């Protein structure tokens, strides 16, 4: 009897822990599927009845939502791709050289507030005439993605056994070949983790695009924030847009939870 009560108590505590997360996301979903009348009703209507998809239709119909979605895709994929190209070899080099000071420098990048990069980079992009293109946003997103990739890869390469590469080197392979054909295939799980995390934190990023983006180059978070400023009251479309922005990330998290947990526990990595 006492054990049963203990179990029920434990189950309840799990429920209490996860309910804030569930409730916020469900409320977001509920708001996005109700009419404006139901959304502003008091007492609130919890279960959408009737269910309406008009809010979603409205989001796609206006605000160049698809253009901004495309911008977000281009920025996140480019920033992640470039970070992988530069960061995977760098993580390998740092792990091999045991260059703790270099790793420290990268940590400082993780620690610095995004805003502090923006003043000089804003002036630089103006001077280079890059404003109005997606390049400033992609380049600034490297500030987030590159440290994530390097940091995850360092801890991954440090954990790999050195014997295989040493055998390859003894057989006459160059260090580049040992990296490319021995270490990198072994580190594929680590690369996956780095890739997922850097994509998510680039996708979620707001601060760089809010300053650097023009009308045509907004990313989704900036576009959605603009909707709030101009349409304080229309909660339905706003929630639908918010849900559409964060849905790819939430789905990715559900699908790749193991890798994400492993990556985050490894270094306490997080975007700027």
């Amino acid at each position: 009897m006492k054990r049963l009560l203990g179990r029920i108590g434990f189950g309840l505590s799990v429920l209490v822990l996860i309910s804030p997360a569930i409730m916020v996301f469900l409320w977001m979903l509920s708001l996005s599927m109700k009419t404006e009348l139901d959304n502003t009703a008091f007492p609130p209507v919890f279960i959408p009845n009737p269910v309406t998809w008009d809010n979603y239709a409205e989001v796609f119909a206006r605000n160049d939502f698809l253009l901004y979605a495309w911008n977000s895709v281009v920025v996140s994929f480019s920033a992640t791709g470039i970070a992988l190209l530069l960061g995977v070899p760098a993580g390998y080099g740092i792990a091999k050289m045991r260059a703790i000071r270099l790793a420290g420098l990268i940590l400082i990048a993780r620690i610095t507030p995004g805003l502090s990069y923006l003043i000089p980079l804003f002036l630089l992009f103006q001077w280079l005439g890059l404003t109005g293109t997606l390049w400033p946003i992609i380049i600034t997103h490297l500030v987030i993605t590159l440290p994530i990739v390097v940091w995850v890869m360092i801890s991954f390469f440090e954990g790999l056994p050195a014997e295989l590469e040493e055998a390859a080197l003894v057989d006459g392979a160059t260090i580049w070949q040992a990296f490319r054909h021995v270490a990198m295939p072994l580190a594929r799980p680590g690369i996956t983790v780095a890739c997922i995390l850097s994509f998510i934190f680039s996708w979620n990023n707001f601060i760089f695009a809010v300053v650097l983006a023009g009308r045509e180059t907004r990313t989704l978070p900036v576009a959605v924030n603009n909707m709030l400023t101009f349409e304080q009251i229309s909660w339905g479309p706003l929630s639908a847009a918010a849900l559409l922005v964060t849905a790819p990330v939430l789905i990715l998290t559900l699908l790749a939870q193991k890798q994400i947990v492993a990556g985050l526990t490894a270094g306490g990595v997080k975007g700027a």
Partner: protein
Amino acid sequence: MTPRRNYARRYVWFVVPAAFAVVATILFPWLFTIYVSAFDWRLGGAREWVGFANYTKLFSDERFGWAMLRTLLYTAMAVVFPLILGLVAALVFNQKFPLRGLARTVFILPMMATPVAVALVWTMMFHPQLGVLNWLLAQIGIPPSMWVYSPDTVIPTLVVVEVWHWTPLVMLLILGGLASLPGDPYEAAKIDGATALQCFWHITLPLLAPYIVVALIIRTIDALKAFDTIYVITQGGPGSASETINIFLYLQAFAFYNVGYASAVVVVFFAIILALAALLMWTRQRVKQ
């Protein structure tokens, strides 16, 4: 010593491209910020060399002082609550129970969600008349709150969002620590007849201390950096009641176009952050041993 050195040096070229990117996007901004901070520099306007004038102005600027105080208040709350809740959550998720994987994934969803999207939903929930939160409070007999619409409650309310958002990261960091705890001390304590609470207090907590310290430092830094949710929900308002250093910085640079002055703010903020970075590295080294 020498052969080992040469062996290591061969790997320098792996790091060079990334180092170049770091110099361009991270190191250059730092140096340029220090340079800009010595000017009275208007975005798209005139600039004039003023030496340390921006810094002296900073220390007599009441608005900056208040922003600093608010940041410290916000940070203190946004560190303590996630640490306590994250520790409790980690202890729970360290037990074996059905659907644990799913429950843990749901628990970490807030930290992966897009901050702007989440902030929008919270904004709607905080609405004093139509928001769901005041309705929920009414159901349990608590008078309605003004949430982010009153200067008295805006900071604690923003902390609520921050706690919701980042407790999962603390949980993950401490959960990683729990997974690495040895089993022997618990066996010994059990034989000696220790209660569960005694075990927690005298074994678990001391062994977890390094992980808690790492979580503490990461949380402190992230709370100091907080911008997205505050900017989306209040933009520093009502009035300037939630204007933290980051919001102050943003307004100075990109609303008032005072980039020289804003750069001085960045430099002062840097000093604090660099001290914390050193602490973080030092702690990480100790944890590794």
